[in-house]
């Protein structure tokens, strides 16, 4: 098993594979080197068109080669302009075809016929045989036989049946759509005049395909087809008539106008005598201008000049082998040898009337058809053939009648060209190009090139060979031109040629093959149209076949429409052999083809595959990766080249959708532009040493800021706790020792202080049993001091037999007065003095509300008129029944350790007292704040006793020893101890501070 090395990955693949199993590269297109795949994002490289030669299919390269060969041979005026046009368009894959001349590969037949290979080559000698007629043309060569047996094989069979049992047809139809087949037939008829049997093929291609074509294309196909039918009998005299029908260029579409103009240029060589004969037939078959679209009518007229200048071929078409099958001339050629008569009658039965008449009209031209279609054999038979144009005029419409009349001169091939040229040249209505066309001398031998040589019979199938053999050998066989091989040596028709077996012949080909027996001298019975055939078409086929059948017959017999079909096809080849076909080919490709048409190109023939593929699934069976190289060549490189970047990573082959089989058509998901991997940038800073040093310095500065400064701690000179104990111990000793010893170490304070004297005097001045309000507003914590101050005062009041009313603005005040009264009674009891009973004082209790309460109480002391123990206190029994206001009290004595409380009482009761003394017994800490009220003028406080010193002084004033004198030494000792501790502590602190400073200085000096 042979292995195919993949051109892309260089890996071996089994021969059976079409696509590389490793990389997906197509393997079978060996004749064509595919362009390198342009991947998404890849910048395509602009290539010269010549570089794309290898990417073209073989048939296109054949065309190019044909151009290369024909260029030096046949100077064509329009051709030099064509490449210029193509150069302007970078996408034109045909632009550089003229540059490449060293390629020799097969070209599809139809394109070869368009390419005008035949005219490019010099007309070979008569004895030269075509070296290698294309197989498929060989098959087509046999089509002449089907032409003859068109009655047996309905034309509809191949025309409208795409059966699976017709691989040849299928392959052919897969390559070319029907409409283009018709167009191809038209072009073939123009470019391949040397083929002896073009009638069947052309008519078979043109008419059936018209059914699937759009109308205008049908007309386009029918245009040339009609001349085919009428071409053979078209006499040279009639040539002016179609010329008259030539439309103006304004009626044509642009591209068709160009087509007309381009095709006009190659027409000039078509003025050769060989191709002059069918020219009238072209115009003869054209319908009236009013029936055709103008442009199509003009198109037909354009084609007419191709045939008009042609002259009868000197060689009999029967001598031409199979390659003539596609050419109408080939069809006309066997018509001279076909003995089958009466085809027009049958055709007239089936055909519509006008077509029947058309057939009748063209029937006379069947005889001269060989003279027209085959330049080599265009002479005698065609000239001798009668022109039975009479029946046509009966049923045909006028234009057809005229057409028949026009076709009549075509039957006179002996003198067509001069007349035609005369008429054309003399016609005022002729366009310039046509005028030039008529003025150019025709090249007669060009048509001969299209005829196959006997050597071609070797490659012909049997049926085709039989057809060849059936041709009259006596006619001189024109040497097959070298271009004939190229023109028909394409692989596409080789496939048809390979259908030498009737079993392998498709239906449509079978019709052609079946005509092979008709090449026998015996007149073949006209095949009745098949049941499934369209009547008119079958009749048309019959009409076309009848000439084929009657090919061996003398020219005097009426010919069918085939002859007419062959006739118009012939002229074009007649003009093309050397220059006409080439020019028409160039004109076709030189024009600016519409997009739809420019995009059409038949795929590269693959006979083996085509035969295997099933009809109707041709599109489905297309290998997704088999993108023709010429399509790749047509890719819009220019638009992609701008700014695109190559991305070799994406080798994805599309597997689905319309882009199936293409590689790198769509970017992969991973290569979405938005998701492209960002470019890696180095994050390393490019700094120099200076910058690095500065950065380091800055970093150190920042780091130093982050560091916490050590807090300078004060050294512990000694432990604090012992100092506390020591201080406490000193104070305790200082207080306890005087109290425990009972020594009067310190003298009692003098009672001569003014405040104490004033207080004493106020108490001393109280009347007997005077109501005195005593406010106990000190806290238990101050009881140690306040009791020592308040004790002598209360004792003095008891001495004065004052009625005491206790009130307190503090909740604990009630407890304090009871405590102090109990203590005084205890002391008085110990001193054998009278004590105060419960009836001598009352406790008014707690007075809430602070200042407000004092204010209310000052205004109305009875607000607190109920004793919680004894009930109403404001009774005569208590002696307070006369008390209605604060001023009713003889004196108000405030005992407080809080200067604010004392201030409230002073401020809130000053007016309510109404001159009554307000005496203050305060602690030493409250004295400074109360003293201003005492020292004010008038005095808001009439007397004040403060602190232990005031109590001791008051004791001395009353001459009543009390606890104040006892505590006075302790108090003095403690005060001295405290003063000493403060002094010692202060001095010690200063010394320590000085030592520390000195130590620091020494340390600094040491460090210095």
């Amino acid at each position: 098993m042979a292995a195919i090395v993949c051109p892309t990955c260089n890996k071996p693949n089994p021969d059976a594979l079409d696509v590389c199993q490793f990389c997906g590269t197509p393997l079978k297109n060996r004749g064509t080197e595919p362009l390198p795949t342009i991947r998404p994002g890849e910048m395509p490289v602009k290539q010269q068109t010549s570089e794309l030669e290898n990417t073209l299919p073989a048939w296109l390269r054949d065309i190019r080669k044909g151009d290369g060969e024909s260029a030096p041979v046949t100077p064509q005026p329009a051709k030099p302009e064509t490449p210029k046009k193509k150069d302007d368009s970078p996408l034109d894959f045909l632009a550089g075809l003229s540059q490449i001349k060293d390629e020799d590969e097969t070209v599809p037949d139809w394109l070869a016929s368009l390419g005008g290979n035949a005219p490019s080559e010099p007309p070979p000698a008569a004895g030269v045989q075509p070296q290698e007629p294309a197989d498929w043309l060989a098959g087509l060569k046999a089509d002449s036989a089907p032409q003859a047996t068109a009655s047996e094989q309905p034309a509809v069979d191949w025309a409208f049946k795409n059966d699976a049992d017709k691989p040849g047809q299928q392959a052919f139809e897969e390559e070319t759509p029907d409409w283009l087949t018709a167009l191809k037939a038209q072009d073939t008829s123009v470019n391949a005049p040397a083929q002896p049997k073009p009638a069947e093929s052309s008519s078979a291609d043109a008419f059936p395909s018209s059914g699937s074509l759009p109308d205008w294309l049908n007309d386009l196909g029918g245009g040339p087809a009609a001349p085919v039918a009428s071409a053979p009998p078209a006499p040279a005299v009639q040539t002016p008539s179609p010329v008259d029908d030539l439309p103006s260029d304004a009626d044509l579409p642009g591209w068709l106008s160009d087509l007309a103009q381009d095709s006009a240029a190659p027409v000039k060589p078509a003025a050769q005598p060989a191709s002059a004969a069918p020219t009238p037939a072209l115009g003869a078959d054209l319908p009236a201008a009013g029936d055709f679209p103008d442009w199509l009518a003009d198109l037909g007229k354009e084609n007419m000049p191709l045939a008009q200048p042609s002259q009868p071929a000197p060689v009999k078409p029967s001598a031409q082998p199979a390659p003539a099958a596609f050419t109408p001339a080939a069809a006309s050629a066997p018509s001279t040898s076909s003995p089958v008569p009466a085809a027009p009658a049958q055709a007239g039965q089936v055909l519509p009337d006008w077509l029947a008449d058309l057939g009748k009209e063209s029937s006379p031209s069947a005889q001269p058809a060989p003279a027209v279609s085959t330049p080599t054999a265009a002479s005698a038979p065609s000239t001798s053939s009668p022109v039975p144009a009479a029946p046509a005029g009966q049923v045909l419409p006028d234009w057809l009648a005229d057409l028949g009349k026009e076709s009549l001169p075509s039957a006179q091939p002996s003198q067509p060209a001069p007349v035609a040229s005369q008429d054309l040249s003399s016609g005022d209505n002729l366009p310039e190009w046509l005028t030039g066309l008529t003025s150019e001398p025709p090249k007669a031998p060009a048509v001969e090139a299209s005829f196959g040589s006997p050597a071609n019979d070797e490659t012909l199938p049997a049926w085709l060979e039989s057809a060849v053999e059936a041709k009259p050998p006596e006619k001189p066989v024109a040497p097959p031109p070298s271009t004939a091989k190229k023109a028909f040596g394409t692989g596409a028709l080789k496939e048809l040629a390979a259908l030498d077996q009737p079993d392998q012949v498709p239906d449509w080909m079978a019709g052609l093959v079946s005509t092979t027996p008709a090449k026998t001298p015996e007149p073949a019975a006209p095949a009745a149209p098949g049941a499934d055939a369209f009547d008119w078409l079958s009749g048309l086929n019959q009409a076309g076949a009848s000439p084929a059948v009657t090919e061996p017959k003398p020219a005097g017999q009426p010919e069918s429409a085939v002859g007419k079909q062959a006739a118009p096809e012939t002229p074009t080849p007649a003009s093309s052999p050397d220059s006409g076909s080439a020019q028409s080919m160039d004109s076709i490709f030189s024009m600016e083809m519409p997009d739809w048409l420019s995009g059409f190109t038949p795929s590269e023939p693959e006979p083996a595959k085509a035969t295997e593929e099933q009809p109707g699934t041709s599109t489905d069976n297309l290998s997704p990766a088999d993108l023709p190289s010429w399509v790749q060549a047509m890719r819009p490189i220019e638009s992609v080249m701008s700014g695109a970047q190559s991305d070799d990573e994406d080798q994805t082959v599309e597997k689905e959708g319309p882009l199936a089989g293409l590689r790198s058509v769509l970017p992969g998901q991973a290569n979405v532009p938005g998701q492209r991997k960002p470019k890696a940038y180095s994050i390393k800073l490019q700094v120099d040493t200076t910058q690095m040093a500065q950065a380091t310095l800055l970093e150190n500065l920042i780091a130093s800021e982050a560091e916490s400064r050590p807090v300078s701690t004060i050294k512990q000179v000694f432990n604090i706790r012992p100092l506390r104990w020591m201080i406490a111990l000193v104070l305790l000793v200082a207080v306890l020792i005087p109290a425990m010893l009972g020594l009067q170490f310190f003298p009692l304070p003098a009672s001569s202080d003014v405040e104490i004297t004033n207080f004493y005097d106020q108490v001393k001045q109280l009347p007997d049993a005077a109501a005195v309000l005593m406010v106990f507003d000190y806290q238990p914590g101050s009881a140690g001091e306040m009791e020592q101050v308040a004790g002598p005062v209360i004792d003095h009041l008891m001495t004065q037999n004052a009625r005491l009313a206790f009130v307190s603005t503090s909740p604990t005040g009630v407890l304090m007065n009871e405590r102090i009264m109990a203590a005084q009674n205890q002391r008085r009891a110990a001193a054998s003095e009278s004590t105060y009973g419960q009836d001598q004082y009352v406790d008014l209790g707690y007075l809430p509300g602070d200042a407000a309460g004092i204010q209310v109480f000052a205004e109305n002391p009875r607000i607190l008129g109920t004793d919680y123990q004894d009930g109403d206190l404001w009774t005569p029994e208590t002696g307070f029944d006369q008390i209605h206001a604060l001023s009713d009290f003889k004196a108000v004595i405030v005992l407080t350790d809080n200067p604010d409380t004392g201030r409230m009482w002073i401020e809130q009761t000053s007016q309510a007292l109404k001159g009554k003394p307000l005496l203050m017994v305060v602690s030493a800490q409250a004295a400074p704040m109360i003293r201003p009220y005492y020292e004010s003028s008038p005095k808001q406080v009439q007397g004040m006793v403060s602190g232990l010193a005031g109590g001791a002084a008051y004791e001395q004033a009353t001459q009543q020893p009390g606890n104040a004198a006892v505590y006075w030494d302790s108090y003095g000792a403690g005060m001295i101890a405290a003063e000493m501790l403060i002094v010692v502590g202060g001095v010690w602190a200063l010394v320590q501070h000085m030592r520390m400073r000195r130590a620091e200085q020494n340390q600094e000096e040491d460090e210095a």
Partner: protein
Amino acid sequence: MKRIFPVINAVIAISFGLIVLLGYFITSVPALTGFRALLLQWSVLLAGMAVLVGVGNLFSVHMQKITQKKPGALYSMVLLVFFLITFVIVLVVNYAPAVAGFPGLIDFQNILLNGIMVPVEVSLMALLTVTLLYSTVRLLRWRIDLKTILFLATALLVLISTGPLTAQLPLMSNLGGFIQILSTGGARGILIGVALGTLTTGLRILFGADRPYGGK
């Protein structure tokens, strides 16, 4: 409602303040004076109830600390126990004469006062004395500057002037009299300031500038 209540409060406070103030100055209008006295009595009653509310709040706070077992719950428990004991004993002794004659009950009440409350508070005052003295001794060790020295010198002179040595040292007696003048002058200034502040605060309340009762 958030706007109405402050306004109402302000109106009540200002109106009642003006009435009380006018009652001080206009004594010839008995109704005004009587209304002022009525308002003051209401305030005293409310203050008395506030004390009870305060006692109830104290009880609930410590009870909450005990139930939630917060730090110091033990002390709260001791407080509440003695609170209840004191309350019950004082209530019984004073409002249950029959029970009050129970032996030892009154003495227990005196022990609560004289044996616990007064000595504890006096001891705190004694500790304060030691602490202040200790601070004074170490004052110069922490900070030695003119203000510190002046403060320490003033304290020392006041102690000396109020101590028993004043009578022994005539210089100190005179120095003590001078220091007393300084303290009295300072106290006067403080009292004047307090008076002005009180007046200003009263006016601000009357004018509605300050609203201690709530609202902006």
